[in-house]
């Protein structure tokens, strides 16, 4: 039987933790990603948000928007939750568990911008929320297909066996695209106009990392 780390996709095994049926692991690849997530969680915890510069209409004057503290606290809480979910998605060794973390990333992403009062941002967040909800269908559908066709959800068992149907892989990638990178970022770009650098950065960060992880999963299984 081929092992995950014989596949020459992601480097050596560094550490694994058996946790019931779900066995999280660190390879060189996922370990590097997890280290980045931790750095960004720390930045989100300890960094204060920026104050956006606004130009007063019809003149040369400009002013800095003030930061609303309760809103900032909520965004920070959501950003940390988002970071934790991303960390979970990076290290988990199980496909259904990964999809659950992906869904959590999707919902916290909306939470981060919920504190913003800007109408355009909230509009875009609403559209993005619809896509995130839609995306659970291909995401869980992909996982369900993998379970039904192979009888297993563990990346360790599926690695290198080549039994996972192409449809399931496509659905997984599509689901992560919906949760994270809403197609081509058309919604993302508007969402990211919201205030608060470390938190809004987390939205982008989490979706890129989800995408990186799903590529690893698709190449391995």
């Amino acid at each position, binding site marked *: 039987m081929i092992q995950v780390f014989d596949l020459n996709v992601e480097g050596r095994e560094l550490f694994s933790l058996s946790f019931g049926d*779900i066995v999280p692991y660190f390879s060189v690849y996922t370990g590097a990603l997890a280290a980045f997530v931790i750095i960004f969680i720390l930045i989100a915890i300890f960094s204060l948000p920026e104050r956006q510069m606004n130009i007063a209409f019809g003149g040369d004057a400009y002013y800095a928007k003030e930061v609303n503290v309760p809103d900032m606290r909520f965004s920070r809480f959501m950003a940390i939750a988002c970071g934790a979910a991303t960390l979970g998605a990076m290290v988990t060794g199980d496909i*259904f568990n990964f999809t659950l973390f992906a869904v959590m990333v999707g919902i916290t992403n909306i939470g981060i911008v*919920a504190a913003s009062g800007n109408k355009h941002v909230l509009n875009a967040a609403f559209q993005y929320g*619809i896509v995130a909800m839609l995306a659970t269908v291909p995401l869980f559908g992909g996982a369900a297909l993998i379970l039904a066709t192979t009888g297993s959800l563990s990346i360790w068992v599926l690695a290198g066996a080549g039994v996972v149907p192409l449809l399931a892989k496509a659905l997984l990638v599509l689901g992560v*695209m919906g949760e994270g990178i809403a197609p081509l970022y058309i919604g993302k770009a508007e969402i990211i106009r919201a205030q608060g650098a470390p938190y809004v950065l987390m939205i982008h960060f989490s979706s890129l990392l989800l995408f990186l992880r799903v590529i690893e999963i698709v190449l391995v299984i």
Partner: protein
Amino acid sequence: MIHRISGILSNFDNLSRVYAVLIIIVILGGIISIPSMEYQGDRLYPKTIDRDSPLDPYDRGGEPFERTEVLAEYPENSPELGFTTAYLTPLAIALATTTPHMGTTIVAHPGGIIDEILYVTRGLDTVVETAILFVAFAMASYLYRRRDDE
């Protein structure tokens, strides 16, 4: 040409539409490939599906309980206590007796199917699911309270 495509893509009101089109393309392609897949049910609960039962996809088969140890406050209100169908509402019972194609919707979502099958061995999944619910609840309560403030 490129300009027209980018015009469509740049409007985020089209976001869900673009995404839905992508999903439809993949699923249409996938439906063609379904006959080539095999069903491997080793790790799922064994079940024999009775196609004639009014509870068709939700009737799991197996030995039905005759008697349970559960004490009910009002036994007369739940005559089928101990069965998976003990908690059907009157509306659900009416639906179940009239048509075999409608029932509870817990497993209507693909995630629900996996949940139902795999809860026994997968503790971390239940933790993550609860966390998702908690986050959703936190967002909802935050938005609600903010509306109160204004």
